[in-house]
């Protein structure tokens, strides 16, 4: 066995330690949950076995990435988390293969959440169930647009003819059939590559690319830029800001400008970088978790930007 035990039972709660080493047990425990979610959600769609394998792999990749991220908070309930990840993996695939169906699902979810004639419950495995309930006389909530009226009528009609709660996917399928929107019936292996593009890092290999990366960094929204740069460190833990200056990719003046600091202010920070998130949070007047989210958003945006040919 490669890793350490990942589950620490405290008072009946499963807390996954953030510095845990992912081992085979994680995979062994996650796969049945993943497979159950895939089977339930995709039961009416024709999905080849290799696509199911790819869905499972993508869910595992995201799970392991999450477990290895030392900056993320612990996971409360492992199975629920795995189910949620798997559901999002399926959603991403459907968004690629059947964007109309995916948008219809969003609209229906919006109606369900904004109209008090509907009852919505979320099961532990992430499935969403919906049914009708008596409308309240007080503060009737509706989506008050023409498109909202039309869709709401359809949803009301479908649910009125259902004897029991329906899952959101079933409901969307029923409404999609009435509207002539194609279900994501057949999903091929080619769709997988589009839905889950890999990181763009391999495309970035020259010093020119690094200059381009820097130009994208200075175009980031300020808080994302600060959250990224002030915390950035190399494998040895040294600040990337110092590396950038040492490698002469940027001057200290440019660096200060990018952080919206004077050079004197940057000098005062210089020996303290990389800053921990709590310090950055205080500087930005946000929470530590928000700093982490801002940095993740920055890294994601840079990856997507660098992916695009110019």
């Amino acid at each position: 066995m490669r890793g350490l035990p990942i589950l620490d039972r405290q008072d009946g709660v499963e807390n996954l330690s953030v510095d845990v080493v992912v081992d085979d047990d994680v995979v062994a425990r996650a796969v049945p949950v993943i497979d159950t979610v895939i089977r339930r959600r995709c039961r009416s769609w024709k999905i080849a076995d290799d696509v199911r394998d790819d869905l499972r792999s993508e869910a595992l990749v995201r799970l392991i990435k999450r477990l290895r991220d030392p900056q993320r908070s612990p996971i409360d309930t492992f199975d629920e988390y795995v189910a949620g990840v798997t559901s999002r993996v399926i959603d991403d695939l459907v968004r690629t293969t059947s964007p109309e169906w995916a948008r219809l699902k969003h609209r229906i979810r919006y109606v369900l959440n904004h109209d008090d004639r509907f009852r919505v419950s979320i099961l532990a495995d992430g499935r969403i169930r919906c049914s009708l309930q008596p409308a309240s006389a007080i503060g009737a909530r509706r989506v008050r647009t023409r498109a909202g009226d039309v869709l709401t009528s359809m949803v009301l009609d479908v649910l009125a003819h259902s004897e029991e709660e329906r899952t959101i996917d079933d409901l969307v399928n029923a409404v999609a059939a009435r509207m002539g929107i194609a279900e994501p019936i057949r999903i091929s292996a080619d769709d997988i590559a589009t839905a889950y593009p890999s990181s763009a890092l391999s495309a970035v290999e020259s010093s020119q690319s690094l200059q381009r990366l820097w130009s994208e960094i200075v175009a980031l929204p300020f808080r994302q830029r600060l959250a990224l740069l002030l915390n950035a460190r190399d494998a040895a833990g040294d600040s990337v800001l110092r590396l950038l200056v040492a490698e002469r990719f940027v001057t200290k003046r440019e660096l200060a400008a990018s952080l919206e600091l004077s050079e004197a202010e940057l000098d005062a920070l210089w020996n303290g970088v990389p800053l921990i998130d709590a310090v950055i949070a205080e500087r930005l007047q946000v929470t530590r978790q928000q700093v982490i989210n801002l940095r993740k958003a920055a890294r994601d945006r840079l990856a997507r930007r660098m992916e695009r040919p110019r």
Partner: protein
Amino acid sequence: MSENTSRRESILHALAGELDEHPSYEVLEQFVDGTIDDVTREIVASHREVCATCDAEVRDLMAFAGRSSSTSLRWLSVAAAVIVLSLASAYLMRSPPLQRTQQPTQKPVARKSATQPVPAIGYGRDDWNAAVRDALAHGTIAPPAILASLRPTPDVLRTLSSRSAAAVMNPAGVVIDTPTPLLTWRAESGPFVVSVYDGFERVARSGVLQTRGWRVEPALPRGRTYTWQVAIRRGDSIELLPSPPAPVSLFHVLDQDSSAALADARRRFPDDPLLLGVLHARFGMQQTAIEELRKYAARHSDVRNAAALADSVSSW
């Protein structure tokens, strides 16, 4: 591998990042409804710029929900009036524009500036006009009395235990507009049962839940203050959230008139963060007020007291 290449790779690994997951539906919905916190709003907006799929989905949902503001003909019809009023407001404020140092960076707000409305003091309602004029003149907005009744005394809030308890239940200590709020809490595994009280009378109760969130049903009467708690079964015993010495979790549902006024303001002036910020502040909806006023300050750095207003509300 050369040393240069190695260093370059170190930099790239640290900065160039990895693709992250797209924003969830729940986040997109909050973005469309304008109920999201300002950091997440920035993250979603930034993501939309690089993800055509999410951008299309948000635009579709905004149009569906009737919240699209980019091409509103209604806005065009009032634009001329706003321009005239802006001249009046500029005269009223008579402040020289701040000299800002040129930054090499771009912010999204800067790119949007051409389409932003200027501050108006003619909203067609005397109470709105007065509220905005007072706010700009003084640079502060006083907290409404309702907030004090929703929040425990400062001494209690300063204790570590109560602070952490307040952090695990939402909403708590706030005014909300929706009569069917989504109550969320952080706790160990359930099952949970949520109860909402008006005084000593229980007015809503969930079923047995396995999830850590429940939307109140039926809709709560407006203009009332509610307490809520979560009962958690632990074997043979029941634990409650919040648990002493944490203060009770209180929220107030905005009264019908105030809610209608907010809806009217959002409908008629969807892109006027000053008015929306001031009104939300007046009604005690602090977080939304801060977000709107910060938005206003970012767009109008040359207006005296623009930044001070958000700070004033933040300090409540």
